[in-house]
């Protein structure tokens, strides 16, 4: 084990007592291993995978190791705060390592140990779960990681992102933080989680912070989200994404100045992949809200997914033409 010893922590910082303690322990573990610890992306996303630190950085040859917490919004999963396991907003901790290290499973298991899950008394299993994101044009092979029958993480070797082969392959770990915390804290209802690890009056519970939000957002997501606005936002985000993508291609000859309508073969570097990708993220979230509102029919649904996927593909292509994507100047 690393130099981080659980025993050294004061009780309120211990991962099995404190939700934030759990997050901090995981972040310290991965920081100690060599990851950059990023902060959440400042946009609404359905999963940590949408963070450009995952989607875009998984593309291209450059090594990359990062870990970050990402608030994830799943409008359809809202239950007005009445379900002990389902939330429309929750936290994921995502670790992305490119190329995937040979001992990634070991690293993962040690991270569990770092939050107090001792493999000597628990039953930890890797159960087949292939991952696919139709909206991101991405897929990978891996497992759900089970601890005593509970899925506590997803473990994926990315094979394709934005319809491009990953070369090299990244290993992606996603910890469902609330679920993991419920497990180590031994509570049955997510709202009962101890957030700050304190006792008595000083204790802050998950419900103190999020119950009202779950109620309000469920109402918003299912009943009141302004669908006219959302349809318009989808169109605008899609159009803006395409506009930035098109405008971002730099002609290879000129070296400066951005010009429009350059045929793909003559394209040089791309200068606006990240802003374009923001609009793709936006479109994706707006689609999720429209879906929760039940205003997208089954047939339309597929076509919306394909529209977002087309944006993601084009953003991936643009990213590969940036310095971060491995294109030299």
């Amino acid at each position, binding site marked *: 084990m690393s130099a981080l010893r659980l025993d050294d922590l004061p009780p309120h910082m211990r991962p099995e007592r404190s939700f934030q303690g759990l997050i901090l322990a995981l972040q310290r573990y991965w920081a100690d291993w060599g990851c950059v610890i990023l902060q959440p992306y400042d946009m609404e996303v359905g999963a940590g995978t949408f963070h450009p630190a995952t989607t875009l950085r998984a593309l291209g040859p450059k090594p990359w190791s990062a870990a970050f917490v990402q608030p994830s919004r799943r409008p359809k999963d809202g239950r007005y705060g009445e379900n*002990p396991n389902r939330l429309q907003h929750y936290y994921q901790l995502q670790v992305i390592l490119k190329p995937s290290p*040979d001992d990634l499973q070991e690293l993962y298991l040690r991270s569990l140990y770092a939050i107090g899950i001792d*493999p*000597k008394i628990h039953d930890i299993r890797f159960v087949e779960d292939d991952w696919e994101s139709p909206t991101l044009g991405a897929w990978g092979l891996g497992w759900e990681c089970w601890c005593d029958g509970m899925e506590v993480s997803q473990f994926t070797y990315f094979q394709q992102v934005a319809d491009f082969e990953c070369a090299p392959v990244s*290993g992606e770990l996603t910890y469902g933080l609330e679920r993991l915390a419920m497990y180590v804290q031994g509570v049955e209802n997510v709202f009962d989680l101890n957030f700050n690890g304190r006792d008595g009056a000083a204790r802050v519970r998950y419900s103190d912070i999020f119950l009202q939000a779950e109620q309000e957002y469920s109402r918003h997501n299912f009943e009141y989200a302004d669908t006219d606005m959302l349809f318009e936002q989808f169109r605008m985000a899609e159009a803006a994404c395409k506009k930035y993508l098109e405008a971002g291609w730099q002609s290879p000859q000129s070296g400066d100045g951005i010009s429009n309508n350059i045929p793909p073969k003559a394209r040089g570097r791309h200068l606006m992949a990240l802003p374009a990708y923001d609009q793709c993220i936006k479109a994706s979230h707006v689609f999720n809200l429209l879906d929760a509102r039940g205003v997208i029919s089954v047939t339309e649904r597929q076509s919306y997914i394909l529209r977002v996927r087309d944006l993601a593909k084009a953003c991936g292509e643009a990213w590969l033409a940036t310095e971060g994507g491995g294109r030299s100047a």
Partner: protein
Amino acid sequence: MPDLLLELFSEEIPARMQGRAAEDLRKIVTGRLVEAGLVHDGAKAFVTPRRLALSVHGVPARQPDLREEKKGPRVGAPDNALAGFLRAAGLKSIDEAKVQPDKKGDFYVAVIDKPGRPAIDVIGEILPDVIKNFPWPKSMRWGVQSEKPGALGWVRPLHAIVATFGPETEDPEIVPFAVDGIAAGNVTRGHRFLAPQPFAVRRLADYMAKLERAKVVLDAERRRDIILTEAKQLAFAQGLELVEDDGLLAETAGLVEWPVVLMGAFDEKFLHIPEEVIRATIRNNQKCFVLRDAAHAKLVDKFILVANMEAADGGAAIVAGNARVIRARLSDAKFFYETDLRTRLEERLPKFKDIIFHEKLGTQAERIERIERLAAELAPLVGADVAKARRAARLCKADLLTEVVGEFPELQGVMGKYYAETQGEDEAVAHAIEDHYRPKGPDDLVPSDPVSVAVGLADKIDTLVGFWAVDEKPTGSKDPYALRRAALGVIRLVLDNRIRAPLKIIFEIVTDGWKNRNMQRVLDRYEDRVSRLEDALAVEKQKQKGAVVIDTPFPGLFGFGLEEDLLAFFADRLKVQLREQGARHDLVDAVFALEGQDDLLLIVRRVEALGKFLDTDDGKNLLAGYKRATNIIRIEERKDKREYTGAPDPKFYQQDEEKALAQAVGTAKADAERAVAAEDFEGAMRAMAKLRPTVDAFFDKVTVNVDDQALRENRLKLLNEIRAATRAVADFSKIEG
């Protein structure tokens, strides 16, 4: 003789792929060894979540020496031909070749001696190739090497390879090879948590023994036995019974290297949820077994889990953790179930307007409407109450929109039944919602309640006619809409319930129901396709001036209406079904060859009667007489290039046997037809049997091919009457023997 031991040590292999992978590894490696002349005594493959292993016993230490003769050009052939031969055969000069005579002269023959190579070298070439090309259903790349094209693909990252080869009495050698940077060795590891230290292995016996010490049971079969035995013992100790589940057993055996079977419990209050839901929750989500009370055959509040860990605390934390997850899952299931109960089934129906059943066959709402209409039409035919059949048909798919079925699609129908019962539907209606999917397979029960039968037939027939109309018929092994199963379902429903159902008329009821509705366009497109094909064929006929072999994309479609084509499919399915029950396929053909056979029950009864008849002496002799008569007619018709049909003329009858036959044929035909009309097939066969003595006497006493042409023609026509008469019961020409 030496043994080969191979182990491919990887990250966790999906349980569902393990069995196939072991079998593939054995087949491919042994096949390649035999190809290379390394004929061995036997081989056995093993698989755990983390390793794929193979032992091949009694492999020769060397390949046999081979001598190959290569035939070259003629003696005296041009120089360039000789040079080419020398190059190809690897000879330095033509003096090294033998000269051999042949029918056409003397030829050069090169004798090439191929000394056998050491087996270990050959194996070292075979194994990397097998590994690189292993047929995983899905494989992946990983790590640094995945940057380069052509990186090794495996089901999950491959970490180590053991490959040893040697005789029993010595330390085996390591087969020298490497795949994508992974060198073969003799070191493996035990259980991930219980014995992670590496250790060296020699051959299968000590490999298995050392693995066992390192908490790995190599043989999946043994892991299954351990799980089953221990689970049953745990259950028995509590007076309970394990609900056995082979699929789950195989899966759990594929998820552990060291099975540890434990029992946990959940809150009794969940037992109010339907048993199927509890079982699906615990099985699908948690891969745990459920238990029932041996005395009352009811589920109890206990479950069996299979861990991969001998835990320091005896499994207390593992059981507690699993129990908590199961509790949460059951809470969800209970919530889903109770939520479902709050909405009546019929209130869900409007949503089906937005759900596409199939792009060419409209929405689920339209489909349900079609099923309802057809069920109402079929109800009188099967003795069902029309209103109940309608009601059941209208509700039969409603549970697809419930939370529980959304979570567990395999509970479709069952949940509908529960919800229907709760909302006070008639018992027959509730059962039809569950049973209209039946029979789901060859071993499944066939419903007998008329309402279930009506809805089941309506659902299946609508599906069949629909997919037939849009030309989504099964082809070869492809049957994505399970249409073969649907047709077989119709056949079994009809036969088991002894329902009189002329299929063609039923198909017409279906298509009639489509007219002037949305489905009209499906019919129109079908007509279009048929006429396009007919046009294409006409053009082809024109080109080739005569008969054409039909090779169209829709062979079944050609020259048929939709109903006839689908009927032919049913005939095929019925044949398969009857053959499986032991009926002779030629008898089925003999009955189908008659006009207008579309009533499954009558067809089967006729086939049965025919079979019994042909088992009697009368039957056998009549068949022989029939064959003799048709042979004679066929030969004479070919000779004379004309047909001998039409009624014989009584004025030409000369012998008593002729007159007797003519009379007997007339009587038999009339009697048989009357009996068939009364659906008395045994009676029809009895009428036919009466023909036998007169037919026999005719052949004994009467010469057909006489010089008098008028007389000959009349006798041939009389023979033809035998053929015509037998068609009252079957087409005897299709009967073998």
